[in-house]
């Protein structure tokens, strides 16, 4: 027993050292940095208590306005994307699970392949498809008489472009999780429904959806966290524009923190902590309302 326990700690040691250094320590240090003036080159320029937070909640301070604008951009993306991505993933999974589908393996593979791509790759592909003058999508729109659309430079098109690109890129992941969930629903339930003469809509509402409760809950939380990580698509495709309308928090924090001349690391950390806090509050609310039934 004694020998066993020493080996246990030894086996955990390599992982725990990295885990401690890059997960636990930064969690504490991030909060500390948010209470300092901190420069990219200068390092810690002094403890200033809650000053950064005060500034971020002061509506007259320019960074505060921009930060909350970015928070609004992130929220917009969350509202547009989370339900859409969940229902599209579910739709694809149901399609693949359909007994009439003969091309199951190919479909599943093709729907999932974009997940294997890197952000700059999907960004350049879609920027080219959405390009104003000679992009393919504007060609098709001109062909059917609608005309060119300024996809990346005007609202609401800029958001639509980012959401469509992200949908194509990531929906396969949701589909795979839903497929796993669908396969966990006992087939006897469907057989019983058939015997009772239920149509496919009723079967979906009364058997499929309740059976997927845990999975939907899990994907919702995952999608909310992912919305806050929105970065590369606006950075590369719209540059945060038009204006600052597609500048999400992650991109704004990146821009302010890695400012070469001004010591904004501290206030950027405060923005990170506020964002992280908001994510945790949303997750907690979900757990308290839906989670009790889900788990």
């Amino acid at each position, binding site marked *: 027993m004694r020998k066993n326990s020493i080996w246990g700690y030894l086996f955990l040691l390599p992982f725990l050292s990295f885990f401690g250094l890059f997960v636990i*320590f930064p969690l504490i240090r991030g909060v500390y940095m948010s209470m300092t003036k901190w420069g990219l080159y200068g390092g810690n320029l002094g403890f200033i208590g809650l000053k950064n937070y005060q500034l971020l909640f002061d509506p007259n301070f320019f960074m505060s306005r921009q930060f909350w604008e970015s928070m609004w951009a992130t929220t917009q993306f969350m509202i547009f994307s989370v339900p859409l991505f969940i229902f599209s993933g579910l739709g694809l999974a149901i399609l693949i699970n359909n007994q009439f589908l003969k091309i199951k393996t190919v479909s599943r593979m093709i729907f999932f392949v974009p997940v294997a791509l890197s952000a700059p790759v999907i960004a350049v592909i879609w920027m080219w*498809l959405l*390009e104003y003058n000679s992009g393919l999508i504007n060609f098709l729109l001109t062909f059917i008489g609608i005309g060119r659309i300024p996809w990346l430079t005007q609202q609401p098109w800029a958001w639509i472009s980012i959401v469509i690109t992200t949908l194509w890129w990531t929906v396969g992941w949701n589909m795979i999780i839903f497929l796993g969930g669908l396969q966990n629903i006992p087939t006897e339930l469907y057989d019983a429904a058939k015997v009772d003469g239920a149509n496919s809509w009723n079967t979906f509402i009364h058997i499929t959806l309740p059976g997927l409760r845990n999975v939907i809950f899990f994907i919702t939380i995952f999608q909310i966290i992912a919305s806050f990580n929105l970065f590369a698509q606006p950075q590369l495709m719209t540059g945060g524009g038009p204006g600052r309308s597609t500048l999400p928090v992650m991109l704004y*924090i990146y821009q302010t923190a890695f400012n070469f001349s001004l010591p904004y690391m501290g206030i950027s950390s405060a923005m990170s902590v506020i964002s992280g806090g908001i994510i945790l509050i949303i997750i907690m609310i979900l757990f308290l309302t839906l989670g009790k039934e889900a788990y």
Partner: protein
Amino acid sequence: MVNKKIIKFITTNFLALILIFLFAFPIYWMIIDSFMPNDLIIKWPPIFIPNKLTLNNYLQIINGTPIIRWFLNSIFVSVAVATLSVLIDIFAAYALARMNFKGRDMIFKIILGALSIPGIILFLPNYVTVNFFGWTNTYLAIILPALAGTFGVFLLRQFFIGIPRELEEAAKIDGAGFFSIVFKIIVPEAWPAIITLFVMNFMGTWNDYFWPLIVLNSKSMYTLPVGMAAIQSQYIQWYGTMMAGAFMIALPSIVVFIIVQRYYIKGIVFTGVKG
């Protein structure tokens, strides 16, 4: 009745074909345009099936940018992260799944809880740490923080718990130590999970854009995604060249994914549904 089935059969498969077309088309467009001369790419109406292919776009990006160096950087850090983190995670997961020691469940709960720590809180202090050790702009800046990922420990622990204990008991009676139990019994049994984790880590590092963008600042150290983003403005009008670069990043991960997709998908479902 038979008619209804035929209609369902046709609509389902037709819908799937349309969706397959929509999902595959952007990738087809990238590949085909990467082999087309620039004047044909921007033709109006667009050319869907070219009659003339060229390697010029590839030559242009290979000669005009350090993309080969970026390719090698990406291969190196991705293989390093995948290998090292699999090794580290095997030991940690075995300890959490099978060994008895004080605080084990507590440690597991902390690791599990860490899955919900938003990354947005961690990246600034982690940058400061990496900078403090002088790792910015080195491979270590990419490799070491990636080893702290908790997902692998979680995945392997779940898998190890499912392995029958009797296999180990027999080896223990024969006097085998923990190391030989891990490598001779656990690793061969958990092979699918280990491959899954290796591939997930490889692809995660290969595709990662945000973190390398922060910690790498000299052109020769870039990984492919960062390099690709950096040359975007330079080649803004050269779509063929950009598509050639994009395809060079995409090809390895697509190939790896297609080869191991069965395991990969199982791994996601396993952790997703149970998690």
